[in-house]
């Protein structure tokens, strides 16, 4: 059974079909890149997978349960328990230190545990920067804090929205190395990206256009 299964989902805004009868499956431990030009439906698909929006029609089966008709309150709980989010703009709370930012995610999920949060930061190579505020961190460091925060509650799916969009090449490579490590450890990764280089390192690439899946293929060069 797949971890995530979208069956014939559509999302319609007035006359606009942002997603048109899209179906796809993601297995546990898979690393999937979702690509496509602006307006192709990537963001809408990500919102639906991330439990921040509901499709107009179709099924969204996560971990064996259809969540397409769940209330906003239940979707919040599902998102908290099963999804780890990584953002293009990092979105760290600017008045909390790196370790406190990681603990925020624990706070909403269960109980803040500083030791565990420090270990998560150490995992992304930021043990020394744990007590720094976001303004004292580089863009790459901020993105690694964001990754540590996404991973802290052991989510079933890590959903990344243009994770390297604001990074230079060196930091992009650091982030991609972390993703490779996560994949080796069995984490399910769904990465939305414009960047072909980021798409190519994934195990599988799904290309969207005009709200439909144009291509869904394994990457031959995947290591």
């Amino acid at each position: 059974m797949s971890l995530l299964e979208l069956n014939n989902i559509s999302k319609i805004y007035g006359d606009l079909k942002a997603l048109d009868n899209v179906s796809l499956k993601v297995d546990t431990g898979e690393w999937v890149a979702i690509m496509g030009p602006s307006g192709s439906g990537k963001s809408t698909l990500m919102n639906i997978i991330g439990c921040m929006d509901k499709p107009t029609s179709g099924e969204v089966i996560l971990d064996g349960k259809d969540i397409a008709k769940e209330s906003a309150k239940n979707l919040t709980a599902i998102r908290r328990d099963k999804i780890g989010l990584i953002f293009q703009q990092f979105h760290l709370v600017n008045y909390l230190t790196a370790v406190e930012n990681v603990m925020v995610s624990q706070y909403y999920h269960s109980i803040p545990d500083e030791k565990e949060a420090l270990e998560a930061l150490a995992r992304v190579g930021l043990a020394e920067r744990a007590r720094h505020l976001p303004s004292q961190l580089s863009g790459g460091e901020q993105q690694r804090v964001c990754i540590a925060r996404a991973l802290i509650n052991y989510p079933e799916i890590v959903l990344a929205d243009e994770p390297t969009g604001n990074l230079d090449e060196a930091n992009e490579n650091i982030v991609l190395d972390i993703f490779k490590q996560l994949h080796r450890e069995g984490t399910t990764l769904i990465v939305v990206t414009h960047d072909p280089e980021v798409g190519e390192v994934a195990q599988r690439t799904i290309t969207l256009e005009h709200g439909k899946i144009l291509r869904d293929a394994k990457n031959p060069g995947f290591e």
Partner: protein
Amino acid sequence: MNKRKFFLKMITSSLMRRRSRMLVALLAIAVGATILSGLVTIYYDVPRQMGAQFRNYGANMIFVSSSGDAEFTPEAAERAVAGIDASELVGYAPYRYETVLIHEQPLVAAGTDLAGAKATSPYWYIDGAWPAADGEMLVGNERAELLGLSVGDTVTVIYSTEQDEADEAGVTAEASLDMKVCGILETGGSEEEYIYLSMEDMERLTGNEGKLDLAELSISAPGEKLQSYAERISEAVPEISARLIKRVTESESTVLTKLQALVLLVTIVVLLLTMICVATTMTAVVTERRKEIGLRKALGASDREIIGEFMGEGLLLGGIGGLIGAGLGFAFAQMVSVNVFSSSISFQFWLIPVTILVSVAVTGLACLMPVRSATEVDPALVLKGE
């Protein structure tokens, strides 16, 4: 770290690391709390302060005989005075009036306890000095002009029973005392028609003791309490009828009621303004932090948790502002009291928790709308790469 500690950590960090914005809200709350605490202090102290001011306008209670024109005894008056709380009794002046002759002119002499008269009638202006020894008297300005008397003159005061009451055999007796004019009394009122001498001199002159025509009392107490004193005295000492001087007591209570209503109104208006200022600031804070709210929701925060965090920040501000305001409010009230009433004010300790609670409540109310709008933020906001 448990959830509560981390919650406190988050809200204190938010306030501490975003000082400039929060200072505006804190200032508004502190100003509101200062006015609240200050005006409530004044509100409670005004009756005492105004009561003291009103005592300058003379007696507010008199004792007369309960049987028409008859007299009453000093002992009865003292029994009646004993029923009044000593801390509220500003002055007590018994009066005995007799007709006397000076330079063959008849006039009314009032025998009194001159220290008591000074306390009950602080508005009396004395040209010269108050009598300090036996044989000294005050002469009303009008009488002094008629008789051509001035300070330092010595005159003979004659008391004749013929003018008052001849003895049973119809024999008239005459007594006289040489009295020194030590002060001319100016009040602009009927007091200027009399001469005032000590009760001892009056008794020496008339040769009889133990009778009073009137007693004036100045009591620093609100109207209802005065009324209750009057009723209790009239009941406990039947030969005395205690009456309020309504011209004084009623104007005192009217002024007090109006002043207290004004203070209350100003307090309410200031609290409303504080609420508007805090609501505006919190609305700006919520708008400014839409992305952070979106992030928190994306991380799984429930609406209740978002409300809790923003309310927590607001209520903490309310508490701090209230504490600052309670202290500054006393200073404000003290300043008003010293400048307006020329006397200091006593600190009301119960006002500290009350000011903090009211500030917290006002801030909580002010936060309701902005916090509600915070829960409407879409978590997908953080995914749009804006």
